[in-house]
Every structure is written in C-alpha cells, then in structure tokens.
C-alpha cells in the first residue's frame, strides 16, 4: 500500500483564481496541513510536493474555483481496495441525505457471465459443420404447442422480456411491438398495463379492424399478470397472445416493481390507478397467493379466463433455480422465463441490483435439470434472460438448454440508450425511459423499430452462424457438448466440460448431463 506518492494532484489553471489574480486566493495553501501547495513571493501558488498528499481532498472541497482534482496514482482497486473514492462518496451521500442509493438499468460489476465460456466448432469426430450460406437452420420455437389452441409460434428463439409502460415511454413500447411484428417474435406488456394499440401493433396491424397487415409476419404480445395488477381487467388478460405470471425479476428478486413519482404522469396514473406524482410500488408478492396450491389455482383460472386459448408463462427471479423452476413447472405453465442477476430494471436500490441473486450462467443449468427431472425439458419451454448482449451470449444460453432468450437491456440500447443508469429519473435524453413529451418526441416508434429489427436480425444471424459451425441445423439440437468452460470456476458452476481436461469436473459426475 503506497502512502507516499499515492495521489496525483492537478490544478486547472483556467479555473484557478490565483492563476488569474496572483495573491488573491491561497485557500489550498491554507487548508493543506501537509504542505502540498506553496505560495512564492509573487503570490503564485504551485504544487510543490504532491508526494505528501494523503488524499483527504480538503483542498478540492474548499477551492472556490473548483480547480483541484485529486486522483489515485494507481488503480484504486489496488491501492485503496475497500475504500475507493466512490465508496467514500456513497457513504457521504447516505450521511447527508439519510437515503439509500436508487438507480436504474442493471448490474454493473464483475459477475460470472458468458464470457468465460467458448463455443466448440465441429470437425471430424462430430457431425460435420453446416454451411451457413447455402443451408437452412431451423430457428423457430413454439410455446404451448400441446396445451393451447393458439400457441405462440416464434420465428426466432428471441423475445423481449417485460418492461412496463411507465418505466418505458409509450414510443419505446410501440417500437418493441412493431419490431416483434416485423421479426415474428414476442414482446411483453410489463406490469404497467396495456399501451393503446400495443396488441395490434405486436400482431402486425394498425387498424383495430385487423384487415390489412402492415408488418409481416406479425408477432405476439405477452400480457403480464403481476403483483401490482396495474391496469388489469378481464379485457386486458384476453387482449394478448399469452399471459405471463411474474414472480420476480433478475435485477431485484424479492422486491416488487418501483415506478418513481416523477414518472407517474396523468396518463400513467390513469392506466395504473394511482394518484399522479406518487410512487407506484408493486407489492413484492401476490396478496392473493399464499401457497404453491394457490399458484396452481391462479394458473388454472388464467387458462379459464383466456378460454384455454393462449399459453401461460411464468417469470422467475434468480433465487433457487432448481426448486423454483420445478415448482413453476408443476404449477402447469407452458414456458418459464428465468431472469439472472444481470437482468435490468427501471429503478431499484443499488445494493439489490448489484449483489442479490444468482448470475445468469448459474441459473440455466439447474433450471434445465429441474425440467429434465420432470420429463418436461423442451416441452415446457425455458426462456433465459438477464444481461444477454447479442448472438454469442444467446447461443451459449441456448446450448446450455434454454429454448429461447430475451433481450431487455440490449433492446433498449438498440433503441439508442447509452446505459447511463438514470432510468429512474424520468429524464432519459433518448426518450426511452422518459415520460416528458418533449423528451419522448426524440424517439420515433417506427425508426426505433427499424433499429431494433436490425439488431434482432444481426443477432439471429450470429446464432445461426454458431449453430451451423457446431454441426447443427436447428437451435433446439444444441447441447452443452457445444460449449467448454474456460476456467475452473465456470466449469464448477455450470457443469460444462473444462478446456484441456475435456471432462466435467468430478463433482458433476452423476448429476446428469444438462
């Protein structure tokens, strides 16, 4: 731990009062007890001994011109470990305001993710690779094939997970719906009720009579049934092509949705039934579910209400993937979304987003195992969510046993987001998570949908390339044999074969190949 010379002291001359009027200001010289600064006979202040700086930053705090910057000379994670400047500032924030830190977007920081997994191509010992340019690859997925009269036939193994109207602007919601229609995939209402015409747009129509299809081939809208039940009525449940029962989400498992008062405009308040300007806080659990039996009854009455036409999905947060997925499958749903800890949110306490829940790569193998143990793998579809960035992550999730993947944060970024993590403030400068009409005007739904569709197209091509070079002609043929773990840690948590060793780690023997 370097104490001497640990900090770089820089004074910006154009902001320094002394540089412009020598002798008029010497605050830094006066406040520094370690003689880092000195003033010469002409009244000029300079940094004479930066080695003596201890990083107390009293000079920066007192400088009337805000001209002083104190930075760690080496990466703070090495020299200051626990007590980095941001940590110190966070404690000061809490001490000043009495509030914890709330923010939007997703997990920022090191979590085991798909990066430590590689894709295994096909050579002679396995079925030969397929030709991406001249041969077909089957990408479609059907949810609720045997159980419903109107199953969801997704053209690509991709969905947009639940992002609510309120958290997202109307324009962003409609862009997602139009993209779903253009690509033949599914989007989701989220828990904030239905945006007018969202269901039409998602199916590819503009006119309510559904006569002329504007966007081919037409996609699907999943209606979320959540703990706050915002804007939910029987017409809402029947308006879409599936119903999703939300139990939790990756960014904040164990907590309900949180829409800050600033984003609750008259329009949002009318849909949700809360007073404008007050926080809309979803409960963390269903007030009308006390047991697993109740959950089964809930799935049954949702089927009853939708006349056994559409699939029922369930969305789980990353908690105990094996037990939770097993319980969800036993409740009788057609598809289970499991959202890893890297999933996104509109607003959540920072500590919960950062450190609560199991990472995505550790959620998929137990979930697959649970379905296999029940004999339901590939029958009850598994949708992997949580911080997936593109075709490579999607391929890895599919090969680990998922049937489809969801892009939430990545879809927002495709719409123009720059991941500034201020979704909760309602001041999104790209109009994605804003409710202010002035900001929302910056996002055109059709232009946004064009960008989203391009992203989905590129991503699906990436999935296709990898699937075919691994020697498969359909995404559901992928298996964990197409992947290898790059390090011991990943091999240990996923049960994938370790590179070089070419076997699963000993304690995975007998657990059952995913």
């Amino acid at each position, binding site marked *: 731990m370097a104490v001497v010379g640990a900090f770089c002291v820089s004074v910006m001359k154009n902001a320094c009062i002394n540089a412009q009027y020598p002798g008029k200001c010497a605050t830094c010289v006066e406040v520094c007890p370690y003689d880092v600064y000195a003033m010469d006979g002409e009244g000029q202040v300079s940094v004479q001994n930066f080695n003596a700086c201890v990083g107390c930053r009293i000079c920066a705090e007192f400088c009337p011109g805000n001209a002083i910057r104190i930075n760690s000379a080496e990466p703070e994670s090495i020299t200051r470990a626990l007590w980095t400047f941001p940590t110190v500032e966070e404690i000061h924030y809490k001490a000043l305001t009495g509030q914890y830190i709330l923010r939007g977007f997703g997990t920022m920081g090191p979590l085991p993710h798909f990066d430590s997994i590689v894709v295994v191509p096909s050579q002679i010992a396995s079925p030969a690779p397929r030709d991406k340019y001249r041969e077909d690859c089957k990408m479609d997925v059907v949810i609720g094939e045997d159980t419903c009269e109107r199953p969801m036939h997704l053209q690509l193994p991709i969905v947009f997970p639940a992002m609510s109207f309120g958290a997202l602007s109307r324009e962003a919601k409609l862009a997602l719906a139009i993209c779903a229609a253009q690509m033949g995939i599914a989007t989701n209402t989220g828990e904030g009720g239905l945006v007018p015409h969202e269901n039409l747009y998602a199916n590819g129509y503009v006119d309510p009579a559904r006569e002329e299809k504007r966007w081919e081939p037409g996609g699907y809208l999943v209606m979320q049934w959540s703990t*706050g*039940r915002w804007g*939910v*009525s*029987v*017409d809402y*449940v*029947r308006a879409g092509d599936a119903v999703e029962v939300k139990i939790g989400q990756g960014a904040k498992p164990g907590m309900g949705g949180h829409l800050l*008062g600033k984003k609750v405009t008259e329009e949002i308040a009318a849909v949700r*039934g*809360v*007073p404008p*300007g*007050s*926080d809309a*806080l979803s*409960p963390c659990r269903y*007030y*009308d579910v*006390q047991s697993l039996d*109740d959950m089964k*009854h*809930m799935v*049954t*009455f949702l089927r*009853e*209400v939708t006349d*056994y036409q559409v699939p029922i999905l369930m969305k789980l947060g990353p908690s105990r993937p094996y037990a939770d997925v097993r319980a969800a499958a036993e409740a009788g749903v057609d598809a289970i979304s499991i959202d890893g800890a890297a999933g996104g949110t509109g607003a959540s306490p920072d500590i919960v987003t950062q450190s609560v829940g199991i990472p995505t790569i550790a959620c998929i193998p137990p979930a697959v195992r649970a379905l296999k143990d029940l004999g339901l793998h590939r029958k009850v579809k598994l949708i992997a969510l949580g911080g997936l960035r593109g075709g490579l992550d999607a391929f890895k999730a599919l090969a680990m046993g998922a049937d489809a993947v969801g892009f939430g944060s990545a879809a927002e970024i495709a719409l123009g987001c720059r991941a500034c993590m201020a979704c909760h403030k309602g001041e999104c400068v790209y109009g994605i998570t804003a409710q202010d009409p002035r900001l929302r005007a910056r996002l055109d739904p059709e232009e946004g949908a064009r960008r989203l569709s391009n992203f989905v197209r590129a991503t699906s091509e990436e999935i296709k390339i990898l699937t075919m070079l691994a020697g498969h002609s359909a995404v559901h043929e992928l298996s964990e044999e197409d992947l290898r773990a790059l390090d011991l840690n990943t091999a240990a948590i996923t049960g994938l074969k370790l590179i070089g060793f070419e076997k699963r780690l000993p304690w995975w023997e007998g657990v059952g190949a995913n």
Partner: protein
Amino acid sequence: MLAVATALDAKDLDLRQVSAALKQLKGSETIEIRHAASLHGFCAGLKQGEYDIIGDAGDYLGVLNDGATIRVTGNVGNYVGDNMTRGLIVVEGNAGLAAGVYPYGGTLLIRGSAGDFTATMNKGATIIVCGDVGDETATYHLAGDLIVVGNAGLNFGNFLIRGNLYIGGAFKSQGHNTRVEPLTKDDEQKLHRLFEQFDVPAEVSRFRKLVAETAKPFYGRIIKRRE
C-alpha cells in the same frame, strides 16, 4: 318478469367441465350451482349473467368479474372478488383471506366476517363487510370505499393513498398515513343509500371515516405510528 332458474350440480366436476356446462346453459336468467366448494377460480372473468351458489364456494370466486352478479348462500374461501372490475358479489356467510383484493370497480358484499388483508390494493370498488375484518385490512388502498360494520384488527388502512374507509366498530391499531375524520353529509347519504340497497342492519351514526393523511406518503420509513 320472473327469473328462470336453471340448476347445475358441480359435484365431481372440474373447473373446465363446469364452465363448459355453464356455457351450454346460456340464455337462462339465473343459474343455481351446487357443490362448488372445491372449485377454485369459479365464475372467472364473466361479463354478464346471474349465478346463485347454494352452499359454500372455493378460493378465487369471481376473479376478474366484469359484470356478473354472483350470490353465495354459504361461506367463501380466500380471495373472493379478486381483481374485479364491475358487477356484484354477495356472500351470505364469511369470507377467508384477502377478500376483495386488487379490484378496480364493482361491489362486494360480505354479510359475515372477513379475514386479514381484506380490500388490499382496492383501486375503486365498493366493499361492504357486515361483520369484522382481520389485520392489515385495506393495505395500500388506492381508491374506492371499504365499509366495515364490525371491528378491525391491527394496522387498519396501512399506507392508505386514496379512498374512504368507514368503520362502525373499533380497530386495534390504525395504519400508517391514515387520519380519522367524522362523516360528512355526503358520506352519511352514501352509507344510508348503500345500507338500504343491500339491506344491511347498521346505524350510520356509529361510523367513523379513515382518510389518507397525504397522497404521497414517504415510503421505506415509518415516520410515526399512532396507537
């Protein structure tokens, strides 16, 4: 005009079979159903019709009700009138947990008593309980009216945001963000009208009203809790 009653025995039938049978009976004015106690989610999402359940009913009776009139002569299980938007549900006996949870509109009348979490997240329905209610009643009440003729348990009206909670008896403790007020002339008229309409034997002069202290309570921290 005389109501034509048609009877249906739900014994040994599951929910799907009973709803299929009910669809066959469409056209008659009132349908009488017996042995519905083991059906959970019965009368879900109905837009019209009158249903008389003779005996007890199971959980989630009249969930997502959107215009039907449902009467139960016995007791009901948990979550009666869950997420209802229109219509009328009358329970002659007692109700279980979380009666009238998440409703946007309609009327729920319980002649007996109801359990904990009654009228939780009410967003606009009128809920009348002629007996007592349990703890945490009307938690996060967003709009509408709850009328309790008897007593209430702990934390009555916790995190009340909007709407009125009328109570004829006592409550063990008052929830966060609530204030007790005497009835106004409008309130008295409303209660008189409702009691007359549904034949509730209660004296309006005994009632008090709980309203929200502020529409924007400070979440996450209970500032003060009065006994």
